């Protein structure tokens, strides 16, 4: 349904993705074009707040919300924003939603707001959101932009959660604050330190690369 509306209102814009069914916009973000593991976008929050599973999940959801709202707004304004100032307009739209998210998180849980710190505000400069606005939402209908944002958001949250879970489990011996290992377990402190973030992401990327290489061989 949404794809049909999109084709009509898009006019000359929709050339690349005209034929793809709209469920595909959602699914591609989960795996094939996963924002973190495949496109390597939005690395800063991925590494910085993935020291516990809870932080990672909260950050992922906040980013997904901003992504969804800004994609919808950018897509609905795509015929009104002049081409020369489009990037500046996108950033303003994103900054507005991030400010809202910042205040909402502060209202829900001050503790969470403290542990995420400045990184909520830094969602503004998450390259993932701007790149989806520029590469997808500015050329496609509201419906498929929303689906694209949802897929990318879920994929991003999933990737963050993968990192956060591993780092919390090994670095702290806990999972969502619950103890998982016997008392004799020696925590790998390095995993919750900055260096652990780099190592964990590198290893996840290695696993993905190996999986892709094997698939292309077959």
């Amino acid at each position: 349904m949404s794809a049909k509306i999109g084709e009509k209102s898009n006019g000359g814009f929709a050339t690349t993705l005209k034929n793809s069914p709209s469920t595909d916009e959602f699914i591609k973000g989960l795996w094939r074009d996963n924002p973190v593991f495949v496109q390597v976008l939005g690395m800063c929050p991925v590494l910085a707040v993935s020291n516990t599973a809870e932080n990672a999940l909260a950050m992922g959801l906040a980013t997904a919300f901003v992504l969804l709202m800004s994609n919808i707004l950018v897509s609905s304004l795509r015929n009104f924003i002049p081409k020369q100032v489009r990037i500046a307009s996108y950033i303003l739209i994103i900054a507005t939603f991030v400010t809202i998210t910042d205040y909402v998180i502060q209202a829900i849980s001050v503790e969470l707001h403290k542990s995420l710190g400045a990184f909520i505000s830094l969602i503004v400069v998450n390259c993932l959101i701007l790149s989806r606005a520029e590469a997808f939402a500015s050329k496609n209908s509201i419906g498929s932009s929303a689906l694209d944002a949802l897929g990318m958001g879920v994929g991003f949250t999933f990737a963050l959660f993968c990192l956060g879970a591993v780092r919390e489990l090994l670095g702290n011996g806990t999972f969502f604050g619950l103890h998982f290992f016997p008392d004799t377990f020696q925590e790998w402190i390095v995993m919750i330190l900055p260096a652990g973030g780099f190592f964990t992401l590198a290893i996840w990327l290695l696993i993905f690369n190996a999986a892709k290489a094997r698939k292309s061989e077959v």
Partner: protein
Amino acid sequence: MNTESLWYIFINASLINNFVLAYFLGICPFLGVSGKMETASKMGGAVTFVMIISSMCAYGIHALLVAINAPFLQLISYIVVIASTVQLVEMIVKKMSPALFRALGIFLPLITTNCAILGLALFQTNKGYGFGESFVYALGAGAGFTLALVLIAGLREQLNLADIPNVVKGTALTLLIAGILSLSFMGFAGLGS
């Protein structure tokens, strides 16, 4: 306001809490343009320049926003200032050195979305730094960013000659190096205190 000495602020921003290796800010250009030594050092210069200008502006804006009692405009006004500074730098670089302009490519306009710059503006506001302190903080952050970028670029240039399995090539390898660098930068903790 704040009792830290200017020297400590500089060392803190550049080495102890290096923006790239300890705060994970500015990872995108860090992964993107760290392939060559020359490009990396010039990128570092451009980022440092934008950092200093936007940090100064952020100080002024913060004072203004506090005066008119509108803190919710903070984020939006910071990003506008940063975007315009980047536009300025882009024009300067294009005029002065077209070759460098091509080498930096898409990463030059992307300085706008470099978290290190917005992060710097937000951190200095949170820490309540004054004008001089903000300036030194921006200088230190810029120096730290350039240092990390140049270090990685040097290592990657060497690795071009090495025999590496295909699976590890690319981002994964850069991240592994960054992890080891980050470990070694932890050795600076306690410096200057």
